[in-house]
């Protein structure tokens, strides 16, 4: 955890910004944001599934705008989660405890994603292939499923850390109290 360049120092200062820390120090608040994030991903998947094919320009623009808004909010929330859980910082700027936390989060996320991908592979590929012709995977589900998988894969470590890290200790030297 040795900032070698001015840019490293800026990154560390931003990560330790008292305003940001006040906002995310409480585990309850982090968990609320994680739940909000999952709800937004579900909403995005539902919007993708609901988007009408064909029709007028207006019918195409409204769902597209709604989707853009949802994706914008999803990206904002996940960026904040990454900032607080220090996933936005390079590995060299973390101390040994933070590196261990990050490694554990990636390990858990990898295992969870492997399980989810296996389930999707089973349901989307194996079941339709080895079932009677009447059993088909609905093609309309492909886009929402892909969206959910991408969002899950990119955010699982941050969600795990945000959910499991305990409340931060108040700074003895600073004015902030949680």
């Amino acid at each position, binding site marked *: *955890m*040795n900032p070698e360049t001015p840019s490293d120092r800026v990154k560390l200062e931003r990560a330790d910004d008292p305003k940001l820390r006040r906002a995310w120090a409480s585990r309850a608040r982090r968990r609320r944001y994680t739940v909000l994030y999952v709800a937004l991903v579900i909403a995005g998947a539902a919007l993708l599934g609901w988007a009408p094919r064909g029709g007028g320009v207006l019918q195409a623009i409204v769902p597209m705008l709604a989707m853009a808004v949802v994706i914008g909010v999803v990206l904002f929330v996940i960026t904040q989660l990454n900032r607080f859980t220090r996933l936005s910082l390079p590995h060299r700027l973390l*101390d*040994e*405890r*933070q590196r*261990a936390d990050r490694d554990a989060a990636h390990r858990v996320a990898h295992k969870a994603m492997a399980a989810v991908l296996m389930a999707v592979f089973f349901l989307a590929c194996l079941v339709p292939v080895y079932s009677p012709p009447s059993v088909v995977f609905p093609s309309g589900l492909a886009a929402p499923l892909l969206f959910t998988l991408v969002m899950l894969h990119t955010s699982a470590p941050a969600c795990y850390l945000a959910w499991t890290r*305990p409340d*931060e*200790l108040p*700074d*003895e*030297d600073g004015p902030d109290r949680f």
Partner: protein
Amino acid sequence: MPSEKSNGRRARSAATTETIHNRIAVLRAERGVSRRELAEALGVHYQTVGYLERGEYSPSLHLALSIAKYFEVPVEVVFSTEPFPRIGH
């Protein structure tokens, strides 16, 4: 003879219950050192000092030796596998 499965489960259980007790908070209070000052001297985040004091993180050998060196005491004065006796008991 215990099976490999139960051995693995026991090893995992032992790993999760391995606790290293420490007297960092006491030494820090005695010397009048803040968490942030200690963290800066050790090159770690000050929240990590909090995690160590609460027993929520067991340090690497390097960090344990650095902490002992900072307080100028042998490492066994700061860390132990057994709980430290409480003062007044």
